[in-house]
Each structure stands twice: as C-alpha cells, then as structure tokens.
C-alpha cells in the first residue's frame, strides 16, 4: 500500500510539485521527500485548469499583481480549456497538432499560475520542445524574436561607469555581431547625472555608426525618467519586476509607475522623429526566481510560481525584451548548476507560453556550485529551445556586477552551432559595413579597425 500524502491547499500542492530548489527549502515549503514531490506532481496533473483560476494563490484583495492577472484574463478563450486537467494541458501543448499558430492564440487565456503548473510536470526536454514551438516577435528600432534569429544584449558594464570603457566594450561587441537585442548598461551609480551621461554616450555611438539597435541604462525606473526629463534619449525603459506587490514595493515600484513610465516613453519616441522606429515595444524587464523570497515578500508561494506571476506583470506592458537573470541570485535560491539549468528552462518556457519575448541571462555567481561549463550547458539548451536573446559580456566576466554571464564568443559559437543569425535589420547593417561576411564575423582587418576607431572617437568627442 503506497504512502498517502495529503496537501492542504493549492499553495502547498504547487510548492511541493516543484523540482528541488534551495529557495523553496529555505522558505520551508518544499517537498519533504522525493515520493512526496511526485505525489504532488500526480495530484497537480489531475487538477482542472479552472480550479487554478478559481482559487488564487494570493488573494487579489491584498495584492495588485493578483488583480492585474485576473483583470487581463481572457475568459472567452479560456472556455474550451477550462475543464482540461494540467496533465491534459501538458499533452495539448506538446501535441503535434498544436503548432506555432495555435499557441499564441491561447496566450491571454493562460494565467501565470497555469503556466507554472504545467511547467512543474514537464521534463527538461519537454520545456525545450514546447518553448521551441513559440516565437514572440517584438519591435523597437529593429525586429527581435523571429524564427532563426538569436539576439544578443551587449552588456558593457564598468565599475565606475567610465564612458570610454563602456563604449569600447560595446564597440567590440558590435564587431562580434552582438548588440542587436540592446546595448544595455547597468550603472554602478544610480544617479540622474550618471544615467543621463551613459544614455547620451550610447546614443552618440549608435548614431555615429548608424546601428539599427536600441540602447538602455538599467537604473531604477524613476532615475531613467528623471534623466529623460532632463533631455536624455531613452529607447527602452528598464525595470526589475517580481511576482508579488510586496516584492515590487521592495524594488521601490508600483504598477502605476510602470504604466506612467511606459506612456511617457511612448510619447518621447513620438517626438524623436529622426529615429526610424520599427514598432511600439518600449519596455525591458528583468526577473528571477527567488527575488520575492529574498525580499521576504513571497506570501508562502513557491519561487517558480512567483516567477510566472512576474511575467504576468511584464506582459501587461508589451515589453520589447524580458529575461530572467537565472543564476544571479545565489545558491540559497538556486544551489547549483542542476537547479540553475532547470530554472532557466522553466523560466524561458513559461515566459514564451505567456507571450513574452523571452531571453535569458545565463549566469552564475562565484558562491554557487557552478562554473563556465554550467553556462555553456544552459546556453546550448536554451538556444535549442529558441530563446530570443542572451547576454554578451566581454569574456563573460561582468566587472561591475561581479558575476559571470555569456560572452561575445559564446554568441558567435551558439549562432554557428544552431545556424542562427542576428536580427534582420542588424544583420543587414553588419554586412553593409563589412563586419560580417556570409552571415559570420569577418576577420578584423584594417578597414574594420578603422570603422571601430571612427565610431569610438566621434562618440567620445568632448568627454575622453
């Protein structure tokens, strides 16, 4: 007679059905044994989807993320799905008859908690297979996310925001065909002056070299808007978001701030008529499992489900880019390579299913049980899953945030292995400038070097 496990509610069932994560253990909500874990998975697989909608894990009266999720839920599209169980829904997603055209139609009928539930009963390969069916395409100054495209964010951070170093690192990235997703700098100092200086410098660079890409300075939303109001050019408005109102509060963030900020940037784009805008996506969000627990704002809900809810926040603001920063948070939430890989695949799948242009910062910190090989592994798995973009950091070493991510070298290697190319407008630019030949980086000869020098000099004019 098998041991019987009783779960006292959806919160407990959801938490215990997760693959092992140190963060759920830290929160005291993880399964106590492997058999309990599987019992929870089995019970979750038998749960009808409508039960998940009917019983919110976090009360909408207490939490504006729950309210946002329910307000943006499309009941009409949900009707044919509602009596399906989570297990049946998993098979429906994986079914040969469910293709690239069908999944996007369902997106607004899937609430984040449903995406989380189905992720919990999928294997790693399921997560890759299912995500690979979905392309979520977005447009700002170029077009990201089409099939066959792998974008890269150039991340040229510097410990004291030295503009020359930032620009040289960014230019090197361009010569590896990186930077089509965004040239995005995390500032070391969150001051309006610093953020404004970085935004102006990046804008001079893309203007001088006529690069069809967008730039961003990943400061707090209020700092970016203050810089905008002082005349700084803002292509993408960045913000970290989380899956509970309380966690967002710990970021100094409300949903109203996102709404107002987005409107302000759309208006700002309208005024910058010298830019050939390709489309209306102006937001950039970063997330990561464990952030709510880290802020002691998890409301007893597991970190995978809260991550899905962060995507519920993100999709309400039609972002151009969204990525989980999957290994950044540290071993107390994702202990080792195995947990980081699992979380990366879950995040990407859930984001794609919910309609987001998902990328991933495949990374680790030096206090986690991981190394460069761990990054290689997840990078290749996510490329197989059709991830929209990765990070490009010089040799993968972020010298400001002190963690290891993926590199310019990783970008060209991954594109070569999977036969992927940069965003179409960006690739045309690379080939026109002779930086790329036949879809690959050309040798860095004297003319390319000259181009780099000119770009650098004209964008540094008056400041170096």
């Amino acid at each position, binding site marked *: 007679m098998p041991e019987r496990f009783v779960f006292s509610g959806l919160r407990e069932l959801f938490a215990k059905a997760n693959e092992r994560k*140190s963060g759920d253990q830290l929160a005291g909500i993880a399964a106590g044994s492997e058999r309990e874990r599987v019992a929870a998975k089995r019970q979750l697989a038998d749960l009808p989807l409508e039960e998940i909608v009917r019983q919110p894990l976090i009360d909408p009266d207490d939490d504006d993320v729950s309210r946002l999720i329910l307000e943006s839920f499309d009941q009409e599209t949900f009707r044919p799905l509602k009596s399906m169980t989570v297990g049946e829904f998993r098979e429906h997603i994986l079914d040969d008859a469910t293709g690239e055209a069908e999944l996007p139609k369902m997106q607004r009928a899937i609430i984040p908690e449903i995406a989380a539930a189905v992720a919990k009963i999928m294997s790693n390969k399921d997560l890759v297979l299912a995500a690979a069916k979905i392309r979520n395409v977005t447009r700002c100054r170029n077009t990201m996310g089409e099939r066959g495209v792998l974008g890269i964010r150039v991340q040229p951070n510097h410990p004291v925001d030295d503009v020359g170093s930032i620009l040289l690192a960014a230019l090197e990235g361009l010569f590896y065909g990186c930077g089509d997703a965004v040239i995005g700098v995390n500032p070391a100092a*969150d001051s309006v002056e610093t953020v404004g200086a970085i935004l102006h410098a990046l804008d001079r660079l893309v203007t001088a070299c006529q690069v069809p890409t967008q730039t961003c300075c990943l400061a707090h939303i209020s700092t970016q808007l203050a810089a905008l109001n002082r005349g700084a050019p803002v292509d993408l408005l960045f913000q970290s978001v989380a899956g509970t109102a309380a966690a967002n509060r710990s970021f*100094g963030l409300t949903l109203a701030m996102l709404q107002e900020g987005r409107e302000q940037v759309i208006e700002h784009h309208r005024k910058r008529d010298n830019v050939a805008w390709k489309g209306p996506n102006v937001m950039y969000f970063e997330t990561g499992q464990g952030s709510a627990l880290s802020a*002691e704002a998890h409301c007893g809900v597991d970190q995978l489900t809260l991550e899905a809810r962060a995507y519920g926040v993100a999709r309400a603001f039609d972002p151009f880019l969204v990525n989980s920063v999957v290994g950044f948070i540290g071993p107390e939430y994702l202990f080792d390579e195995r947990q980081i890989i699992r979380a990366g695949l879950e995040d990407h799948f859930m984001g794609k299913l919910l309609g987001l242009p998902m990328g991933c910062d495949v990374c680790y910190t*030096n206090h986690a049980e991981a*190394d460069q090989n761990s990054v290689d592994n997840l990078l290749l798995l996510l490329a197989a899953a059709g991830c929209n973009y990765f990070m490009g950091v010089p*040799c993968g070493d972020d010298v400001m945030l002190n*963690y290891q991510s993926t590199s310019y070298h990783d970008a060209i290697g991954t594109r070569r292995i999977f036969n992927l190319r940069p965003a179409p407008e960006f690739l045309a630019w690379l080939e026109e400038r002779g930086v790329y030949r036949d879809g690959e980086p050309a040798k860095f000869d004297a003319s390319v070097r000259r181009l780099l020098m000119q770009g650098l000099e004209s964008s540094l004019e008056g400041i170096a």
Partner: protein
Amino acid sequence: MADRRDELAENSGWSELVRRIRARSPARILAGRAGAAYRTETQIQLREDHAAARDAVRAEFDLNAALGVRFVERWKLFEVRTRASTKDEYLLHPSLGREFSDTARVEILRRCVQGQDIQITIGDGLSMPAVRAQVPALLPLLVEGAQPHGWSLGQTFAVHYCRVGILNEIGELLKPRVSILLIGERPGLATAESLSAYMAYEPRTTHSDANRNLISNIHARGLSAEDGAARILSLCAQMMKTGSSGYSLKEDRAALEGK
C-alpha cells in the same frame, strides 16, 4: 603563440585612445578569439580567476588576520557573530546573517553608544579579502571626513557571517541617524577585493532594499577609497538633510563635484 593571435587582440595596431581606455578598464576587452571560442590563454585565465574567487568566498573572517592587530587596537574594533554558525549555513540561510546572535547583542550594547549621528559597521559578506584590502584605507577617511560636519560617530565593530539586512538590527539596537555597513561583495573574476557601502537613514526592522542606498565597487580598479569615502559622506549629508534614504534619494553627483 604571438603569431597566431588575431589582429583584434594585438595592442600595437591600436590608437593611443584605445590603448589608454583598455589600460584603465578591468573588463576583458579585445581578447581576440580562436574561431568561435576563446584563445587558450583566455580560457585558462578565466578558470584561474574563478578558482581565486571561489577560495575568497570560502575564506573565514578573522578580525586580527584581516585588519592587523594595530589597526584593530587603534579603532578599538571588536568582532561579533550573526546567527549563522558555519559558512555553509551562512550561504544557504540568508536570514541567519541578518540577525545578531544573543551574545553579540549583549556585547554590542555593552561596548557601543546609542543615538550617534553615524554608525559604521564592518561585515565580511561574501569576501574577507575585500575587507582586508579596503577597510584600512576607507575607515580612517570616513572618520576624518565626518569631523568637519560635526557628526558624532558610534563605535565601529565587525560582523562575522554578515548580510546587508543586519542594517535593520543595528538600527534597532543602536538607533543611529545614518547607519553605514562596509561589506565584502560577492567576488568577481577581475577582483575578489571589491567592497560595498550600504547605507540607511534610521533603519528599522520593517526596512527593505527600497530604504537603502549603495556605493559599490570600492577597489583598486574600481572606485578608490578616497572617492568612495567622499561619496559615502556626501550621501550621509543628503540623508541627514532630507531625513530619508532609499530609491527616492538620488546621489547628488553635481554637489559632490562642486566641492
């Protein structure tokens, strides 16, 4: 091997401007490539630096070993612990590193004066080498720099197995106006010696990161101890003036440079 380097990695062909920038940046710029991969030297160097960072994380904090007996005596420093009792417990249970042990509370209340303008505390965080490298220069600069303002200073002490959230308990125990925590950052590959200053105005148990300000990357190839101290003190002044801290308080770089 030199003849196999590609041109991008060569220093000689670059203009003075590129060479100057490259020299001042710790980033691994223009490393060259072997096909779609790193050159062997880059590959081995990355692993070597990762090994050093891993060892820095595992290094145990010891006040005298980190700062030297003379420095410890000069500043009357003492060491207390949080509720984490081992390195692994500290790494896996952050909340333990945000609360003092019972003996630590008694010791702190016995040796420190409450209600000062500024309380500076040292925490090992994730890098003992960062404390060893930065605190000997930074602490005296902060103390000297606070004097012209007439701010009263609390007794500095060091916290073993320390997390940033300890600021709240320091606030509750000692009730300073501004609390400054000098804490070892997570070691990167370029340096394991980077220190952060987390700061909060009248921190209390309910406070989160939203209530804190941060000056980070204090190390030899980042922010110098002199510039770090100036920015910390300038933020102190802003906090005292506005009676607040956190994301709504932006560092006033213009005021700093105007000095």
